[in-house]
């Protein structure tokens, strides 16, 4: 080999370099390995997503806290003041469920169209395509963290003690939330390439999904009895986000039974399940979400093959 000394001294031997194989379809394991290998790209894309979102706006990143706060304000006015839900500390109740829902909804909403929107990039540069959807979820996680920070401040200001005994379920529940959000985001971003209507359909579906999740109403107080009498309880709990929302509410809102300040009747705000039920629920959920993520990844692998000709 006739390399000039200056160049060869710095370069590692090419013979030891890893080989990348391009063939018809990669196995799930290879895909996950590739994904892990490009985690730095995920971080850069997430950072640029956030930067772009708040570029040219005066309040910048502050919007990531301001806009959920405004949403919260609206729900509080409608359900707390006008419709009189009767749940004491209603803002806190709303907040502990809304952080979960916001992460899921913003991520899935933006990720649904992301591959179609960035067709130019997808057709020109090689990288695991699901990273585009995952970067939207990553941005959602960053907003989630900033909202959690606000939640902590609110708890401190109200001198409200969270349920410390349940606190260790929080990371478990968060991992499930991340995996479920990521799975739906990745899958939807791929399907939208073939069916452009998905973007509009998803907006409506997410709205329906929101009302099926006990964020603005109390599951135990307004739904449980009705569902039980119609035998729909199992269907209601098909929604994994409900499980996570209930866990978050149990941790941060804590109060299971309260006396309504307006009607002075007893209301069951949260189900009176023992810790063991929450543990079982979250362990099962984690297992489910890991499997869901694998399924989403392998389905996306099938969808990915024809992106070039569909975009």
């Amino acid at each position, binding site marked *: 080999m006739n*390399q*000039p000394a200056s160049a060869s001294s710095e370069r590692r031997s*090419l013979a030891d370099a890893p080989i990348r194989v391009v063939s018809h379809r990669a196995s799930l394991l290879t895909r996950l390995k590739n994904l892990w290998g490009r985690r730095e790209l995920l971080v850069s894309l997430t950072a640029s997503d956030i930067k772009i979102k708040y570029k040219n706006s005066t309040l910048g990143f502050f919007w990531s806290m301001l806009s959920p706060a405004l949403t919260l304000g609206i729900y509080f006015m409608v359900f707390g003041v006008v419709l009189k839900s009767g749940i004491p500390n209603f803002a806190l109740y709303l907040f502990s469920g809304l952080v979960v829902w916001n992460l899921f909804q913003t991520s899935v909403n933006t990720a649904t169209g992301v591959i179609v929107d960035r067709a130019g990039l997808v057709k020109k*540069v090689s*990288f695991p395509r699901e990273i585009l959807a995952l970067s939207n979820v990553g941005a959602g996680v960053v907003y989630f963290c900033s909202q959690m920070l606000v939640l902590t401040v609110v708890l401190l200001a109200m001198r409200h003690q969270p349920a410390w005994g349940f606190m260790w379920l929080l990371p478990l529940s968060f991992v499930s939330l991340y995996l479920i959000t990521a799975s739906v985001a990745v899958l939807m971003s791929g399907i939208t390439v073939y*069916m452009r209507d998905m973007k509009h359909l998803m907006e409506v579906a997410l709205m329906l999904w929101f009302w099926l999740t006990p964020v603005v109403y109390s599951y135990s107080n307004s739904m449980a009895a009705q569902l039980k009498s119609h035998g729909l309880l199992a269907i209601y709990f098909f929604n994994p986000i409900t499980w996570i929302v209930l866990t978050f509410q149990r941790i941060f809102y804590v109060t299971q039974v309260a006396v309504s300040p307006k009607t002075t009747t007893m209301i069951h705000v949260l189900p009176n399940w023992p810790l063991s039920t929450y543990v079982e629920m979250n362990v099962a959920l984690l297992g489910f979400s890991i499997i869901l993520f694998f399924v989403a990844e392998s389905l996306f692998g099938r969808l990915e093959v024809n992106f070039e000709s569909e975009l």
Partner: protein
Amino acid sequence: MTTTIEVDNVSKEFKLHHGRHQSLKERILHPGAGTVEKFSALENVSFSVQEGETVGLVGHNGSGKSTLLKTICGVLQPTSGQIRVRGSLAALLELGAGFQPELTGRENVYLYGSMLGFSRKMVDVIFDDIVAFSEIEQFIDTQVKFYSSGMYVRLAFAVAVNVNPDTLVVDEVLAVGDERFQAKCIDRIRRFQEEGRSILLVTHNADQVRQLCQRAVVLDGGKMIADGPTQESLRIFREHLLEDAATHETIESSANIQVTSVTTPSGTFDVRSGSGMHFDVSVASETAFSGNFVIELFTRSGLLVSRSDAQASPVNLRPGVNTIGVDVAQLPLLAGIYDLNVGVVDSRGSTVVAWSEKAASLEVTYDGRESGIVEIGATIHQD
């Protein structure tokens, strides 16, 4: 010697949808609408690129070279076969495809770097080189959407070459930027070659391949029709273009024209620099044909020395063997061997009718002390 790119029996089929509906409503209303036609873009292509080699991939539009390139870069998956790429690979495909207009040049450099698979730390080290190469120092913190297209491309090229990949894939991008920046890019590619890295150059510009590549692979209609030394592959490429022209254009199919020989009165092609020379080209034609005659002169390293004006040297061929004389009053070339291509093109100068690649080789001797290709005979004065 290590193989950097190995293309192993790769085929790629595309499904062409005719009139298929993309919205859900239309799909439900017309479930079977549209037909699917299979189109084979690549058929059993195999070749490899060794470490330190520069290989040209040539073919005219629609020959499948872009598809092959995309599969090598991993943007497309082949329908069958496999591609193995060793070490890092940076592709200069559509420069700036990864740029986000809303971000600044600096932010885009890091983002594009990570898209090519290089870490933030690695980009930190070469960041100054990238900026210096792109020559947009004062705009690096400006949003990319305010860049001119030239600045955009220069920055993208600067990132791709400065990340020092083991293999560089270059696709028709040397056509961008002004002439000075182009020269800079060619220089950078030459340095890459000297450093023993591999380059795959994809183009339909034969001159560029001659200049930079030792080997060339020729694609035509998705099939590989040549893989060998540049001169040999380019000859096949040109001949193929002629065959295609003959089948596509009816005027040309009636004119069966061939360059049969190139001779000099003395019988040798040894010339002294500065002297005149004459040679005769025999062209056999079946029918009468009016067109233009073209000669090209190349150095052995593939640099185009001169190409005659393809619209201003008319020849009227009669049926039979025609002799065309070429006179050069004073050959300004310096010592070396030069390859001569001759051919006949149509009257508009756009379609090649007959071509002979490397029809003869001139051996020029020179007694002076000037070096290079052309004698300019500069005289030096001092006041």
